[in-house]
């Protein structure tokens, strides 16, 4: 089998780079998760420690809310924006560009700005709501247990819905005009066109974008960490932040590695289920 080994030689450089950049960190994380700080094998002790911690289940539920809430609104708002931007109106080009701004702004800048705007005493949001008498007293957006996670989700939605909008808009623009005209002759009004023509035609785009949003949501640290660092009282603590803080604030690298391994497994299952049941469903036409 000389031929096969020659082929292997050709892909070797790429394999080496991949191995160093991906396989090695993954493997080393696995190794860290079953050893202690001195490097001695400790079995599942680290896993037991992180699973026993009170913050872990809370972070898990927070992550679920965070990802789920973000995606639902990002997709709904993004698709609605795309449909709107796909209509003909004067100044459409400018509006399209402006829509992109939240996505273009660096996450840390956006997070800090929003933190100021949500500030209880000096924030513009409380000012705008108290001045006309919408609410009587300022709300502690970032300290109230009922508002802090929704506020984080809102900021995340604001940050990423333009991405959804632009991707879906690109999909919408590839729909041949004939289809709309055929639908119009068939008796469709605007909402019929949205429901029966636009959405089915951009479904592959929405599926792909949603998968990206899931992955990004599961990995995102910037917004929450910059504003609340997971607080108050772990109300906005999501698993990636828990891992980050375990490793780089408490220096529990082994427990952080164990939590990473668990998180990695859960993520893979979620993504797998998603691809299996949504991305590849009906045998329909492109």
């Amino acid at each position: 089998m000389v031929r096969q080994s020659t082929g292997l030689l050709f892909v070797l450089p790429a394999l080496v780079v991949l191995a160093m950049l991906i396989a090695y960190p993954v493997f080393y994380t696995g190794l860290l998760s079953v050893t202690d700080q001195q490097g001695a094998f400790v079995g599942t002790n680290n896993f037991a420690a992180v699973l026993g911690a009170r913050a872990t289940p809370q972070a898990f539920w927070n992550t679920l809310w965070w990802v789920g809430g973000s995606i639902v609104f990002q997709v709904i708002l993004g698709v609605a924006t795309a449909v709107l931007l796909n209509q003909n109106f004067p100044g459409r080009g400018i509006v399209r560009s402006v829509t992109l701004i939240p996505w273009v702004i660096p996450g840390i800048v956006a997070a800090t700005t929003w933190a100021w705007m949500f500030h209880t005493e000096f924030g513009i949001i409380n000012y705008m709501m108290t001045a006309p008498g919408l609410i009587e007293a300022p709300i502690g957006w970032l300290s109230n247990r009922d508002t802090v996670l929704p506020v984080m989700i809102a900021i995340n939605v604001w940050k990423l819905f333009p991405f959804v909008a632009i991707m879906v808009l690109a999909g919408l623009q590839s729909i041949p005009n004939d289809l709309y005209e055929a639908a119009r002759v068939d008796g469709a009004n605007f909402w019929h066109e949205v429901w029966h023509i636009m959405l089915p035609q951009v479904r592959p785009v929405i599926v792909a974008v949603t998968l990206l949003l899931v992955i990004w949501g599961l990995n995102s640290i910037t917004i929450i960490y910059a504003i609340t660092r997971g607080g108050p009282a772990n109300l906005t603590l999501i698993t990636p932040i828990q891992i980050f803080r375990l490793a780089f604030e408490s220096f529990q690298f082994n427990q952080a590695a164990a939590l990473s391994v668990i998180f990695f497994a859960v993520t893979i299952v979620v993504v797998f289920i998603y691809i299996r049941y949504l991305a590849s469903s009906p045998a329909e036409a492109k």
Partner: protein
Amino acid sequence: MGAVTIRDVRKNYGSVAVIHGVSIDIADGEFVILVGPSGCGKSTLLRMIAGLEAISGGEIDIGGRVVNNLHPKERDIAMVFQSYALYPHMTVEQNMGFSLKLGKVSKEETRKRVTAAAQILGLEPYLQRYPRNLSGGQRQRVAMGRAIVRDPQVFLFDEPLSNLDAKLRVQMRSEIKALHQRLKTTTVYVTHDQIEAMTMADKIVVMHDGIVEQIGTPLELYDRPENMFVAGFIGSPAMNFLPGRIDQGAFVADDGTRIPLNPLPPAAEGARVTLGIRPEHFRLDPEGIAAKVVTIEPTGSETQVSAQLAGQDIVGVFRERLSTAPGADLRVSLDLNAVHLFDAATGKRLVA
């Protein structure tokens, strides 16, 4: 029921006028074909009937109702698009039933009408397929099926056969014609192919540069074209034109070739005219005019000859098998009953 009246309809895009006042009367059940070269406004006119383009001036009346300001869905029309415009994410059955679904027709009724249409078009085995799994001809039929289930007052066809190969086109031509004879629905059909127009239409509307050049049955247009444009557009190969003048009851071509006319021309003595003669109206005649053969194209059933006659390039079609060669002289005469005379300045037919 389904008569269509078009009265002085105009279309402007900004200050550019593309249709300059078109009037056409289409009787209920008639098969009318709008034909003309690219850019003549025929598709625009069809889209105005459909309601996909705004009407800049004039009136369109469908079934006794002025539809200028009605949406396409309120006009009771069905349209077959050049690209077929089938919904890719719907099965054939869903494609055909879509308009009924939007019209809130019951499920059983929809199923009944879709099945009936599928039967007419031979689409029953394909009802559960998606458009991408169909051949071009089958997609074409689905597009027609979508129109049939509507049972509209008017069918509109926008160059429906131009994406098919030549053989399938001929087959679909007769299928559409048979369908029309069966359903008797008023049909407006746009094409740039004059053979399609000649073979299918009850009535042909020849359009050119946004105006109607002539309206008539296929044979009227063939036998008595009102002007040089219609004469040159209808018929294949196209009519030959010889410029010249009238001189003592005869036509004298610019190079002096004299062709006696019978009956006498209505034009004044000495007037500039253009003589039109169709390729099939040349006869081999040892006494006739000399024509220098340029090329010979035998098709088996007939022979097509390009030649120089009276200083002009002409094409003749002969039933005989010719034993001549390029460069040789061929003597031909003209079938004088089939000669057309046109005013050289206006291009209008000079009526005998």
